[in-house]
């Protein structure tokens, strides 16, 4: 009897959750926007359906959530400002749990729901799986943050962020040109394609231009809590610069533990390091003097667009500070808007393949000014051409490094 009761209770719970799901769509986590509020007033001639894929559950959820929030913010802004060529944007998000297989499932679901433009996927590996599908459908695919080379291995796939090799080579060159360090130690995440990709090219480039790597210490996702061994080795190696091609969560731990171990070297990172100040919380002083190559900085931004985006994001999402992922995704939506405007598409019922051809045609020669910098695209490869600014953290804010 007890078990039946438990079962009934479980069912009631499930049902109440279902009921909640229907009514609480304004909770900031809602997957769909656009359709619901826009259809009644008839202000738009139709809706271009934007799909988004990324992890909102599991280990990489923070990246996916940032992208989802930023796309939603941009879509709402665009719709509120009158849309694009008389059309509005509709947006649907699907979770991929940072898993290639689930990403393809998510993609198929979105295609069933008549997606016309895909902004995604957020993480590199699932992106490679989705790109193969998207190639067959010839749907315009713009990944905000899939940085692996293969992530855009299709003529219809483009990206907003830098590619991994690009960052590794860029970082090595910058260090050499500006004489930031000569003996370099690296701590990288061997189980993360992003980190591995940057490190591989960094090392190759360092050898070419004559930078000495004195220590290269690896960690994995499973061991990303204790860095005392790696830090000790960096200390012993006598390095004068610590290169951190990793994401900000691990970097915050490294900074904290390096401080405890009295490791006193300059630190240099890539765009994944953006967000480290927020992650450190009340220990933000530890990030003082950390240098990073990033096209976007939320804290201490001087660019008008960056400030406006940061404020809008904070207002919409409970004072959360947007990170690199959010900025790239926000740009992605506006890039799609700019391309559609330039292409002069006015019919929202256009097929995804036709729309893709028009967007790519429009992207050729388009110069886009967004929160992550001014960029153009190489139509052949899908890579953006933009510059990364070297920033240094000073008094809890990013300051452009003087050359």
């Amino acid at each position, binding site marked *: *009897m007890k*078990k*039946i009761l*438990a*079962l009934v209770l*479980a*069912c009631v*719970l*499930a049902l109440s*959750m*279902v009921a*909640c*799901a*229907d009514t609480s769509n304004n909770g900031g*986590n*809602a*997957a*769909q926007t656009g359709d619901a509020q826009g259809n009644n007033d008839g202000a738009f001639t139709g809706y271009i359906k934007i799909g988004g894929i990324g992890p909102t*559950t599991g280990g990489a959820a923070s990246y996916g959530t940032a992208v989802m929030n930023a796309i939603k913010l941009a879509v709402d802004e665009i719709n509120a400002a009158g849309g694009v060529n008389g059309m509005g944007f509709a947006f649907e*998000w*699907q*979770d991929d749990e940072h898993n*290639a*297989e689930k990403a*393809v*499932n*998510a*993609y*198929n*679901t979105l*295609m*069933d*729901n008549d997606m016309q433009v895909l902004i995604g996927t957020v993480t*590199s*590996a*699932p992106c*490679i*799986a989705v*790109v*193969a*599908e998207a190639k067959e459908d010839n749907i315009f695919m713009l990944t905000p943050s899939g940085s*692996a080379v*293969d992530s855009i*291995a299709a003529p219809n796939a483009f990206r907003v962020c830098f590619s991994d090799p690009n960052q590794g080579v860029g970082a090595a060159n910058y260090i050499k040109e500006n004489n930031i360090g000569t003996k370099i130690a690296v701590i990288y995440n*061997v*189980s*993360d*394609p992003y980190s*591995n*990709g940057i*490190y*591989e090219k960094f*090392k*190759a480039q360092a*050898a070419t231009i004559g930078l000495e790597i004195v220590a*290269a210490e*690896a960690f*994995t*996702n*499973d061991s990303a809590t204790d860095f005392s061994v790696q830090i000790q080795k960096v200390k012993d190696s006598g390095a004068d610069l610590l290169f951190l091609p990793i994401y900000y969560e691990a970097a915050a731990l490294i900074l904290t533990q390096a401080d405890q171990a009295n490791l006193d070297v300059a630190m240099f990172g890539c765009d994944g390091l953006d967000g480290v100040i927020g992650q450190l919380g009340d220990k933000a002083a530890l990030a003082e003097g950390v240098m990073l190559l990033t096209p976007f900085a939320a804290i201490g931004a001087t660019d008008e667009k960056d400030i406006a985006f940061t404020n809008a994001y904070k207002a919409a999402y409970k004072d959360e500070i947007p990170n690199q992922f959010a900025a790239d995704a926000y740009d992605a939506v506006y890039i799609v808007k700019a391309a559609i405007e330039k292409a002069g598409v006015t019919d929202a019922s256009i097929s995804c393949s036709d729309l893709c051809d028009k967007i790519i045609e429009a992207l050729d020669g388009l110069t886009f000014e967004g929160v992550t910098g001014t960029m153009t695209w190489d139509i052949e490869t899908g890579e953006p051409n933009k510059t990364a600014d070297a920033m240094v953290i000073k008094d809890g804010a990013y300051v452009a490094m003087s050359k």
Partner: protein
Amino acid sequence: MKKFTLSKPAKDRYITYGMLAVIALVVQLYITYGDASRSFKGLLVPTCVYILAAIALNLVVGISGELSLGQAGFMCIGAYVGSTFSVMTEELIASSALRFPLALLLGGMVAAVFGFLIGIPVLRLRGDYLAIVTLAFGEIIKSVFNNIYLSTDKNGLFFSIGVESKANHEFDAATQVDYIKGAMGISGTPRDSTFLICMVVIFIAMFVMLNFIDSKQGRAVMASRDNRIAAEAMGVNVTRAKMTAFVMSAFFAGVAGVLYSHNLNTLQASTFNYNLSIQILVFVVLGGMTKMRSVMIATIILYVLPEALRGFNLSNYRMLIYAIALIAMMLINNSAAIKRVREFLRAKFARNKNVGGEV
């Protein structure tokens, strides 16, 4: 005492085969002539992969009564071996009808060899050692494959563990081809897995395993599960019996891995983590751990449910609903009241036992 009658298993087998055939036929007709949605078509191969992995695991967990937590590790081996083989021979063997079966066999066999190596020390022991060792095995395999680099250039093959030596190696850039790229895994695997091939493989696996269970060896396995001492006293070589089941399970898990890797364009070792092993174990446990057929049905329900929920306005709650479904299934499986209801229904519908074809 448990009684193993002979006529019943044979009948049971034919029901299972019939069910497989009906599913294969109905679904294939539906995707060929009906207007199946893309997500439906996309789910077919993964579902088959998990069915194969789950029924293979059932051979160890259900039939031989050992706990194995390394199914994902065997899948990982199969996936990498099969995928590497296909990528490297894509130009050499142009016909996928020839290449893919070879990849399937190769992936399965390498996984089986690893199963054999693990089985040698562990299956001689009593207790939970297999669970501990397979758990570690899965993690080791994941870490190793996460660090493998395999490339070729005009100077030949380059293989390394760890990115260090690759970054130090000088490649001939013009002819360099990267096959396995560490954490980035393998990309560009030909997508040879189709629903029909998967069903044929499942059918073969089912045929082999069900016949094994009913064979002399299979009964020896079950006897040593139920009472090891009694079985040994009767002259059953327990280690050998369990080893056969374990290696067979590893083989089919490897084959499942090959099917998995040929369904996606990309393959990373991080997919085959501990969670995947547990997920497959959940399919087996909630499938009742005895009949292959019920494990298959449980897999279909539990894999398709969270994906099917995507389509509704519930996508934010799908993982929650999935968890509740797991709990509910656990209760239903074991509650006395539900068992009574089942008995009642069984008695009532004893004559026209239906051969369900649900997907």
